[in-house]
């Protein structure tokens, strides 16, 4: 952990302490009273349809952009994720499943989008998701192109892999070429979507074909280095969350620091795989740099559900006991959980709430039995302290009960 200390102080010099203060007053409102009892596992998941106007202009220019983002004028300072693509390709479904926890089967009833729908997501980092109607010409002069593409973090282009996709690719290519002229730094993230219904062979053929067609067009126009990435996604499994995780990770300037911290945690504690999750969306914002397979992500993501569900059940607002409030006799301020498996040779799971928004989830290897818990606790404490400096905002936002002391 020594090394993480060093890394930490090195980092703190370039950390980004300033966040729009206005965010502060906004926090407690949120129509999330149902979820509030979630113990100290704060689960402050709130997500509203904030029209732009509701977000006061920030007094301080936002600093959490990657170097790749175009400089913003004094806008709302939230990176935007734009969801674009053909009609019925699944844009609104993706947004609802990932950010509103809509059960996938209920997306069947989503109506076609007629106006740009903007969602603000408050988390370790604020960002906006703009869900576009499929039929719009995004470069129609009637449109305020600048207003749309300025400050965006990523353009997510959704292609229905179960449908005829040539026109979708044509429009995508046109969009990329247009963007290359004026906003060459925007990440274009292509979701080859609805792959759940496809056979393995067909799926990979389609995927390769789409990549080929886009890249050919780009290199024909001399843009072979345009920042375009491809993902296979479906709302019926974890793949859409994984893809979003990767999209968002590109927008986190602190990512290398986070990865280094996680690497050092893993090696000191013999952790097989560690993820830093955004509790609300179950997007992981970082993991150690050992190879990732979707299986371990899925286990961890399902595990968050278990902890959140149980916390909701038993974290209800109890009346104060015999006059003295429950908080006085606190146990853990940060929620913590551990699962040990019965069969020898099975991994076990560890979860620790890091701050209001983030949880650390670790898959432990065989060689780190529960006796090592003290070591793990200690090192996770160090990790947590380091993280507070990486994301100062979360620290300031500690729930009011504790900030009164």
């Amino acid at each position, binding site marked *: 952990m020594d090394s993480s200390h060093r890394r930490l102080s090195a980092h703190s010099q370039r950390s980004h302490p300033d966040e729009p203060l206005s965010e502060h007053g906004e926090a407690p409102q949120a129509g999330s009273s149902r979820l509030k*009892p979630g*113990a*100290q*596992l704060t689960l402050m998941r709130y997500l509203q349809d904030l029209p732009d106007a509701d977000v006061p202009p920030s007094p301080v220019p936002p600093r959490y952009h990657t170097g790749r983002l175009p400089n913003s004028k004094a806008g709302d300072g939230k990176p935007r994720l734009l969801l674009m693509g053909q009609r019925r390709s699944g844009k609104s479904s993706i947004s609802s499943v990932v950010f509103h926890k809509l059960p996938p089967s209920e997306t069947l009833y989503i109506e076609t989008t007629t106006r740009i729908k903007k969602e603000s997501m408050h988390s370790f980092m604020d960002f906006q998701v703009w869900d576009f109607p499929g039929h719009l010409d995004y470069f129609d002069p009637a449109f305020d192109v600048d207003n749309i593409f300025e400050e965006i973090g990523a353009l997510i282009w959704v292609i229905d892999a179960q449908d005829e996709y040539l026109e979708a690719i044509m429009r995508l290519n046109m969009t990329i070429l247009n963007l290359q002229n004026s906003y060459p730094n925007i990440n274009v993230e292509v979701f080859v979507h609805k792959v759940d219904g496809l056979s393995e062979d067909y799926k990979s053929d389609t995927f390769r074909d789409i990549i080929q067609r886009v890249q050919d067009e780009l290199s024909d126009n001399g843009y072979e280095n345009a920042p375009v990435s491809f993902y296979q996604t479906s709302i019926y499994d974890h793949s859409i969350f994984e893809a979003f995780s990767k999209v968002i990770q590109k927008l986190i300037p602190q990512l290398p620091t986070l990865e280094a911290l996680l690497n050092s945690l893993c090696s000191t504690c013999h952790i097989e795989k560690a993820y830093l999750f955004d509790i609300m969306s179950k997007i992981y914002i970082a993991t150690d740099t050992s190879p990732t397979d979707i*299986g*371990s992500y*899925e*286990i961890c993501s*399902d*595990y968050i*559900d*278990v*902890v959140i*569900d*149980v*916390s*909701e*059940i*038993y*974290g*209800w607002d*109890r*009346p104060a*006991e015999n006059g003295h409030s*429950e*908080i006085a*006799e*606190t*146990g*853990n*301020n940060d*929620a*913590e*959980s*551990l*699962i*040990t*498996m*019965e*069969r*020898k040779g*099975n*991994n*076990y799971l560890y979860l620790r709430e890091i701050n209001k928004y983030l949880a650390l989830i670790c898959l432990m290897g065989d060689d780190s*039995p*529960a*006796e090592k*818990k003290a070591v793990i606790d200690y090192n996770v404490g160090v990790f947590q302290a380091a993280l507070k400096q990486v994301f100062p905002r979360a620290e300031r936002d500690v729930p009011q009960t504790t900030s009164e002391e």
Partner: protein
Amino acid sequence: MNTGKRQKQRKVLLMGKSGAGKSSMRSIVFSNYVAKDVRRLGATIDVEHSNIKFMGNLMLNLWDCGGQDGFVENYLNHQRNHVFGSVAVLIFVFDIESREFPADVISYSNIIRALQECSPGAKVFVLIHKMDLVQARLRAQLFDERAEYIRTASESFRDSVDFFPTSIWDQSLYKAWTQIIYFLIPNAATIEGLLQQLAEVIDARELILYERTTCLMVTHVTRGEEGQNPFTDRFERISSILKTHKQSMAKHTGIPAGSANFAEMQIKTGRFMFFITRLTENTNLAASIPPSEQVFNAARVNILLVRPKFAELDIASKPRPGIQQAFAHSAESDRDRDRLRDHSAGGESEYRGKGKEPVSIGMGGGFDG
């Protein structure tokens, strides 16, 4: 079969029209299927028997009776005594989507009459199933109407029959089956008594006993203000959480779902502490306690201490003929002692089970693939 004296074989009939969803619910509750797997099930031919060892000295003897007309006629005529004799519980499943509800009820009353004749003391549960197919706002009313109508056709069971709305897509299935199982457990009061004592000793807010394979609640004890917990459906919600977790672990580790058991799960927060741990061969104990490390540690130690007491109530540890059983029992208590020693030495000892599946479920018809 070696049936110890105190072991209670309880015959349970699962009946209803073909396609109503009987085998679906059985495979989800008892065989670790997930809801989306049940489409693979074919129609049941004749009767599929399964024996399920349960908490207490209960052995469930489940008859999943294929619902096609030919089979039903056979049950009612040629096999009347064989099928309807010595029945403890009849579970009758109605499909809410059925277009021939009146005909379904006629078939139901034929079966009720046979039951009345051969097992007048039986208990009847009616499940009105596939409620997910009805719009949420219409569910309650439709359920009440159907239930009232069915009650009038229930002959001598008219006053005792219980109704539940169910769906394999939510926890309502667990709610219904929890009630059915509770009815069948012969020594529930004794178990509850012990649980109550334990709760006092460890100052638990709530203790819930779950059967390990099915994750169904056996019983629970709630103390103090936990009684005001607004989540009144929490017992079946936790069932469903546990089952889902089990499936998630099985899927990603490659262990069969039947064996993907955890030894312990702990959750500690500023408002409560919670853990689930193995209590007896067939049960897990969930405890919700105040947020304090001392209470938490004391509770875990005390639970280890009472395990033998609960084991006495458990079917597997009865001194049944068969050396294996006795052996397993003593191994169990040895392990307890070891664990306690570890504990007093301050070590966090990890609990490892025997690695064998304790609950044997024999399924007929090559069902349990």
